């Protein structure tokens, strides 16, 4: 489509004066800034790796697979992280849970995460219904081959063991237990997913058996 001539504004190049054409004022101005840095030395460069950056709390680094209070993998192999993953870097092999794990039906026999393919968007963490996968503050992982950067279940659990006591990487599941999908007996009343009729007090109850209490605190208190 041709541009309507009415929409075009013509501007003129400003005239260059004599001093400006010599460039001398600009050179002097530049030298003043350079000399200013010499006399007033305020470095911003971080001397990595001697100095380590302080990362924000929401930094998204290498993943870890959390353990529950019994030391078992918390993941229930629902594959919602793999479904949410835009980079398609998670592969889970599900299996029936061992018979001595009465609280769940399913667990990951293998959990493979390609750290090179991952784009560290954190969607897996958001999708996880049992808070099993979390992104840590580790950003400086290296490997000698591509295969070494494809982490399996043991490697991801190892990262949990390594980071769980680091104050920068708290276990974010406030309760420290399995999430709602596996705690069938003690199911908290869920918040409304659909519209709630006015006056339906049960919908806003913070926990079973309590009606009319003040609104629940946000669950994630970190």
């Amino acid at each position: 489509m041709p541009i309507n001539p009415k929409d075009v504004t013509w501007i003129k190049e400003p005239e260059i004066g004599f001093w400006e054409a010599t460039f001398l004022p600009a050179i002097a101005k530049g030298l003043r800034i350079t000399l200013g840095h010499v006399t007033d030395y305020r470095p911003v460069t971080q001397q990595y790796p001697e100095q380590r950056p302080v990362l924000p709390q929401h930094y998204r680094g290498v993943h870890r697979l959390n353990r529950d209070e019994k030391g078992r993998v918390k993941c229930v192999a629902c594959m919602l992280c793999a479904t949410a993953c835009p980079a398609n870097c998670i592969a889970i092999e599900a299996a029936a849970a061992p018979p001595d794990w009465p609280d769940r039906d399913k667990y990951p026999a293998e959990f493979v995460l390609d750290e090179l393919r991952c784009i560290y968007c954190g969607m897996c963490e958001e999708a996880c219904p049992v808070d099993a996968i979390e992104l840590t503050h580790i950003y400086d992982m290296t490997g000698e081959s591509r295969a070494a950067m494809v982490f399996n279940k043991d490697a991801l659990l190892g990262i949990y063991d390594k980071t769980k006591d680091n104050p920068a990487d708290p276990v974010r599941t406030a309760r420290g237990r399995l999430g709602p999908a596996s705690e069938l007996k003690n199911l908290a009343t869920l918040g409304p997913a659909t519209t709630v009729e006015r006056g339906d007090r049960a919908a806003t109850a913070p926990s079973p058996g309590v009606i009319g209490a003040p609104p629940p605190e946000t669950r994630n208190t970190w």
Partner: protein
Amino acid sequence: MPTVYVNNQPVEFGAEERLNCVQAAQRAGVEIPHYCWHRALSVVASCRMCLVEVGQKKPDGAIAMQPKLIPGCQTPVTDGMVIVSDSDKVKAAQKATLEYLLLDHPLDCPTCDQAGECYLQDYSFRYGRGYSRLQEPKEQPPDKTYIGDQITLFTDRCILCSRCVRFTREISGTAELQIINRGNHAEIDIFPDEPCNNKLAGNVVDLCPVGALCSKDFLYKQRVWWLKTANSVCPNCSTGCSIFVDECEDRVYRLRPRYNPRAQGDFMCDEGRFGWKYVHGDERLHLPVQRDGGAAVSHDWDVVLPAARTALAEAAKRGEIAAVLSPWMTLEEAYLLVSYLKSLTSKLSLAVAPVRTVGEDDKYPKDVHGRTMEPTKFTIRAEKCPNRRGVEMILQHFAGSVMPMGDVLGRASSGAFTAMYLVGGDPQGWINEVQAAALDKVNTVIVQDILPSPASQRAKVVLAGGSFAEREGTFVNHAGLAQSIHRAIRSPGEGRPDGRILWDLAERRGLFSAAAVRREMADQVPALKPLLDAELGELGIKL
């Protein structure tokens, strides 16, 4: 024509038709949610999900509505009937029903195999409340891991629609399942030591509208939203059940029956449901082979196919050629092969590989003694191949008669043929060592198969073909119903679908297209005329 009004939409139905409100609403494009009702089973109206308002139009135009809500599945429609499924009263009933059904239902959707194709999820989203008001602990009976060899029960997920119970009583007739206990403690169970192992048992998993009954074969293997589905036909017997092939990344995960009133109805048997494992077997032929004096000289299609073509052309000049077609071939493949060999020589013997028959036709329902009861609702045929009729139609047209493989092999052992083209496909084997010995007398043996056999060991050229899940084409079942199968996965290794192999062998231009071959074939073979200019669609065409 009698007319029923669904949410103010008139729906006409035939005078002889017996519809209930759910079916009438389906015709109007209105969904009346239901769990316990299934078109193939008796009506119990126990889930109460399909409650609707029902009324009658009087001759003077006035409408008299019944004061109570009526279960739509149990109410036959009559002329002038008015069904309302979107009023506030109905919506409130649906919401309340779902809430009751979900009272004790665990919120374990992330680990439930049914998630993604679950009617509890779907209806909760569309008609439900979205959260639970239950203030008490849930009733959580333990799982029963052995309902049958292939079936496991997550007791806590069950909503007691009793579809599975009615299926075993009415369709299979074996009646293994029942509801035990009462009220809040009611559960699906089997008699002790009487597991649900009948040949139709797998259907209860499909019938289950929630994730209570699960197939052990599919359990935890894959999430259903990752599966891609292709319409196909079960190849394991000549009933030709319409099926869905569910695959993900070139792996078949399960077969499910596809409703087809012209073929089998709603169900399929366990032989077909679990009889596809050979598709991913390690022994599958992965590469084409060209042999010279017993040693393989090439595994390259670009070498093997021209070699096969030249060998066949030379053999045709020297003497007679024989071909053994398989009842596992599609119509298109049989047509391509025969028309290609016909173009080479007129001295051509055509035979069909033996049709594997196991026992007698197995008819259901059966009574407790295993005797068949009338009326028959499902038949597992003794003839264990998908397309005997279709291949015989092609042979009848081109050869005038259908010769058994034994006759051709008998003549082969006396050195009558210069070349033989044998097509396999039966995963249980189609030729034994003794029969295959006759091939030693034939100079050029070409075998097209999916699994190694005594014939493929003797062959000069082995063409690695595709299983039913890898091919496009048409199968004709025992009753002459032509149904199309569609490709779901790629062949393992270098294997190619048979249609493509034959297309390339015949040096036809472009790519193999089942539809194009079907048109050409229908034009030439009078018996297949109905396939001309007709889409086979999902249900197929009676020939």
